[in-house]
């Protein structure tokens, strides 16, 4: 135990200076520290993410400048939107990386949104997002969540809700088809059929956990 003359206080631990007034201490050392010294933590990926963000901004600015100098349409706007879409998808994926099924489900929603946006602003073959992309994505993701969760030994309760939400999301293409927004039937029908099969399977094989999960998530 050491003593600070200036403060009139006894100081525990092996330090040379008073933690309050920074004055020199008298008396004998304690053999051990009262608190461990904690090294600074530097966040992983931090610098990589920053470089990527910087390169994205440089790309957008260079494209805008070139576009302006050559006066050839508005193509740099498309570049800017594309970079924005990329970041929307990427930042969601990074934030939710610890929960794979949730991460995948969010990608379905975000990528569907991006597809709708591009379908609307680009002149090439309109309708591809509602006809092919969204039904295809939903149909692809249903088995993907199931297989990945099985492989990674994620408990049924943990990924159940995302399977249900994706199956529900898979009903939207049917809505596109019925309202005439989509014109090609087979992708939407396949997707909805697959979603309904998953529902039926869950009700038959995972009735109790499904009900418990719904009760938990929707309590008010």
């Amino acid at each position, binding site marked *: *135990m050491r003593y600070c003359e200036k*403060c*009139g*206080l*006894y*100081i*525990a*631990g092996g*330090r040379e200076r008073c*933690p*309050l*007034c920074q004055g020199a201490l008298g008396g004998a050392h304690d053999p*051990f*520290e*009262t*608190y*461990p*010294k*904690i*090294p*600074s*933590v530097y966040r992983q990926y931090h610098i990589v993410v920053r470089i990527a963000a910087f390169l994205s901004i440089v790309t957008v600015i260079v494209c805008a400048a070139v576009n302006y100098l050559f006066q050839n349409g508005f193509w740099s706007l498309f570049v800017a939107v594309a970079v924005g879409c990329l970041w929307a998808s990427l930042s969601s994926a990074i*934030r*939710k*990386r*610890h*929960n794979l099924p949730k991460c995948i489900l969010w990608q379905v929603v975000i990528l569907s949104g991006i597809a709708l946006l591009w379908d609307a602003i680009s002149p090439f073959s309109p309708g591809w997002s509602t006809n092919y992309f969204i039904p295809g994505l939903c149909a692809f993701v249903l088995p993907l969540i199931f297989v990945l969760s099985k492989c990674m030994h994620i*408990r*049924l*309760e943990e990924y159940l809700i995302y399977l249900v939400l994706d199956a529900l999301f898979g009903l939207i293409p049917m809505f596109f088809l019925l309202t005439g927004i989509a014109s090609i039937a087979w992708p939407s029908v396949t997707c909805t059929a697959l979603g309904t099969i998953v529902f039926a399977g869950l009700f038959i*094989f*995972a009735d*109790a*956990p499904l*009900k*418990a999960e719904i009760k*938990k*998530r*929707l*309590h*008010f």
Partner: protein
Amino acid sequence: MARRTRPAEWSRLDNIAKIFPPTTTARDPKVFRWSCCLYETVDPEILQQALDKALISFPHFKTVLRRGLFWYYFDASTLPAIVHQENLPPCAPLYDPTRKSLLFRVSYWMERINFEVYHALTDGAGGLQFLRLLVYEYLLQKYAGQFHGGAPVLDYNVPAGLAGLDSFQKYYDHLSQKKHKRALAAYHITGARLPEYRLRVIQGEMYANALLEKAHAYHTTITGLVCGLLIHAIHAEMSNLDQKKPVVLTVPVNLRNYFPSGSARNFFGIMNLHYRFCKREEPLEDILDSLNSQMREELTEEKLSERIHFTGWFERQYWARFSPLALKDIVLKQADRISKREVTGAVSNLGKVSMPEPLCQYIRSFEVMNSTNRVQVCLCSFQNRLVISFTSPFVKTDLHTHFFRALADMGIPVLIRANQPEEG
């Protein structure tokens, strides 16, 4: 699917706890720490066994926090609770919305056992019950051969079912709604903050009877004296312009002392103590007189029941119950920001800690501290050792110096323990 899955248990957050998840930030992770110092180096293996045993009585601690569509909820978890050597700053964040983890941690450093817990899970008094049980199991294991007249009995044995009960549900009828008066913005301590949102911890250990004697000499209680000294120390920092704003200290009150309950969940009320300075040199006596009269007024059963957190009211509004969680988060964040404007700091007296008599010889002291983004003073005593833990996120130590020197000037010997948040 051959694997049979038992429907997992889950529970709602109690009324006070609802405010914590939306307002948890890196700056204020809403984590508090109870520690127990022994007279010998802690044995990690025995501590692990003690933890496993203690968790049997507190099954609702083995949960993770999850988001539903309307409310947060605790979901039973099979994640293991592992003791480890202290390797994080005090009160480091526990709740991370992006990854599922238990809402408490048990660590050890030299002769100290630390129990850190997310505030949504329990309050200070509930957390203490867990640490007491943990230390009890540890000492019982370690000195198994020494108790000849049979093992000592811990007076607080929470029935496994009762510990998770929400006392607010039970007492809501008694507790009328708090009418929110709009108060003036309080004085806020400013200054450079420590890196990585670290917390500065400076603790003063002293004799409880010496402090109590001083408090009586000033005709006040220990809580009153500590509040007075803190206000006095804050005043020394204030400029003439700052003096226009009042200094407001939040003092949590353990409602278990007023409304009987054995719950280990959150069950506390809040009282705010104000002081407005008129002159440059304000004697400590004047501050203590004012605080005394305020405390007499606030610490009545009727007043306390008015002071229940507004979330009790919030939960009973239909528009609030059925609005999605994302919207509630925004509303509660905003409400918290407004109520924080009215507060300078907080003082929390957790009172006397008791342990079964045969175990006391192995225990040196108990300590408690809380994360904060202003200043927070927490104190508790064990036998005749009282520890005042001062936490703040600031680089400067003027406030602490003023506070502890004042105690030393009163003739109370104080032993300081401090962490070194800048180094490393």
